[in-house]
């Protein structure tokens, strides 16, 4: 059960190897967290991550979850919510893909959109239903600032996050004023495994900063959080940059 100050006792992470998600779990482990479930495509690959969380005194389960296998989602969610409450679901899976390939390869572009957007929609609907039956809980969805103004350099990824962001906001509106809290998290450039080899964008940040923003957002029951916080003001400004300037910025 989440307490009055937003500290949660249980978390389910979809995309359990996400570095942002793991940083968040570690932050929560220093508070009231008792149980974490890491849902990952390949459970064997997550044993190290699980052990590190266990070392913080949290009981950890690693379960198999494939975001792209939408057929399996309903049964997966039903199993997750069977015996105990889940205070927080962190939707953290996603792929960046290869934009250069996606520029011409529809199959690859669809793969990105399928995992990041369709996969998320497919699992978020039963999660929100289960949480509504449970009567309480937070769903935090990792979106991106790319959802706010898509960039040429990764526009397929951006468009998948834009779709996910819009969906998450709609879900938040649907559950406003209830015990279910839905939040979109829009990090800027974060140095992780996923962005290795990429040129850091301005306002680049770290997983710890994003984790802190997520934890603060849960407490404040925010609908949208940015990390770093300054992007809350930067992104609306970038949104109104005229197209011809935006193209020149080579963002």
């Amino acid at each position, binding site marked *: *059960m*989440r*307490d*009055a*100050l937003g*500290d949660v*006792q249980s978390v389910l992470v979809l995309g359990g190897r996400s570095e942002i998600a793991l940083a968040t779990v570690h932050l929560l482990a220093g*508070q*009231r967290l008792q149980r974490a479930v890491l849902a990952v495509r390949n459970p064997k690959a997550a044993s190290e991550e699980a052990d590190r969380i266990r070392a913080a005194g949290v009981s950890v389960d690693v379960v198999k979850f494939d975001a792209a296998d939408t057929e399996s989602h309903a049964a997966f969610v*039903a199993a997750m*919510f*069977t*015996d105990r*409450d889940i205070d927080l679901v962190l939707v953290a899976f996603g792929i960046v893909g290869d934009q250069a390939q996606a520029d011409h390869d529809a199959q690859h572009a669809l793969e990105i959109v399928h995992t990041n957007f369709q996969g998320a929609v497919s699992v978020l609907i039963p999660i929100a239903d289960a949480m*509504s*039956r*449970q*009567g*309480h809980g937070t769903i935090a969805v990792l979106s991106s600032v790319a959802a706010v103004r898509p960039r040429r350099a990764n526009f397929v990824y951006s468009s998948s996050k834009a779709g996910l962001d819009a969906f998450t906001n709609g879900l938040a509106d649907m559950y406003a*004023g*209830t*015990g*279910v809290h839905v939040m979109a998290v829009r990090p800027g450039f974060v140095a992780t495994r996923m962005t290795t080899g990429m040129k850091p964008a301005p306002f680049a940040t770290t997983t710890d900063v994003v984790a802190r923003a997520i934890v603060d957002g849960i*407490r*404040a*029951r925010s609908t949208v959080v940015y990390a770093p916080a300054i992007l809350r003001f930067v992104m609306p400004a970038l949104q109104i940059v005229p197209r011809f300037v935006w193209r020149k910025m080579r963002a």
Partner: protein
Amino acid sequence: MSTPLVRHETLQGWGRTSPSESTVYEPDSEFQVPAILEAWESDGGAQRRGSIARGLGRSYGDAAQNAGGAVVSSAALSRILELDRAAATVRVEPGVSIEALLKFLVPRGFFPTVIPGTGIVSVGGGIGADIHGKFRHGSFCDFVDSATLVTPALGPMRISAETNADVFWATAGGMGLTGVVTEATLRLHRIATSQMRVDTTRCRDIDDCMTAMMDDSRGERYSVAWIDCLANGANLGRSILETAVHATVGDLPAERARDPLAYGAGLSVSAPPWMPNGLLNSWTVKAFNELWFRKSPKRPHRTTVSIPTFFHPLDMVKGWPSIYGRHGFVQYQFVVPYGHEHVVRIILERLSAAKCASFLAVLKRFETSNAGLLSFPMPGWTLALDVPAMHPGLNKILDAFDDLVLEADGRVYLAKDARVAPQRFAAMYPHLERWREVRARLDPNCALQSDLSRRLGL
């Protein structure tokens, strides 16, 4: 048998911090209660969510809500059944408020022995939290003669300190987790007037205040100190001490003495429905506390005021928690035994240092404890303070307070709590295991649950 009203509702406590959704039933007969408990105990869903009783929603945290489960509201069980003048007892349904009880009893020359700091508390809630007030010689359940408790496994039971005593004392302060109270008989205090004779004294610091509170020479029945917890340094704990007795007819001016038990409802205003969060900050609170302190005269003085004016000053502002904005607030209330006064002082110091924008903190003391297995009162000092929920790092600050309280063998009050860690709670309540044994007998399948019980693993 008719069926009770049902609705789906998002509920939260008085601190407005932890909303959750429940199915709310409003039975208008005690006979409808067992069916509700049964329906949610054996609910076909994979998760049995259970039921919990709710009165007037004045628990600050998550005690009277049940996410995804049933909430049994006592709103339609609010009749005063019988006044026994000779025995000085009154039999009531659980939804009767202290306010309604006062309106009925005071003109008849009776007073509920223990009343809390607000009139908007139900008798059922009073039992569930074993509430206390400015009276320091006992808490609410010390004056509950008997009650009827609908339990999941054993059905309706008559309980009192003599009959089914173990169940009675598991229910006193048991936060509704032993059953649903459907009727109770309260022992009353006889009064001659509807007025209070109040002595007000300014205390320059916390030591001064505690010394004055320990001084019984005035023979007061009720006492409370309002502490300005933003004052620091030499002013730390500067406070206003109010002590009172029920006024005698001789205390009243002639025009009141003609009808000494006349009891009018107090004036009330509403707090604005919406307030910016920023309005409540250390500056505004400091100004308010300064004003509160200055409004009382420098020299000790004596006045005669109405019962609500003395007991329920905050009830004059309906919905006052809205000043804390949409993020709400937590009330931290603890008790430490006599001899551990330093804990009160350290906590005031740390709050002041952390610039926690707390409105007046309230200091009271208890002379006794009772056999309630989860009852809060114990001989010692109890301090209650409100803190905005968004204060940075608040849980760490309060966890550190919990450790101080625990070290002194004190405890925090469940009716106010919304955040204590389960392990610390268990260490604070030494009779928890015995309580669990009684509960397991009454409710082996956990048909009674609340957000609080889930949070604390009760």
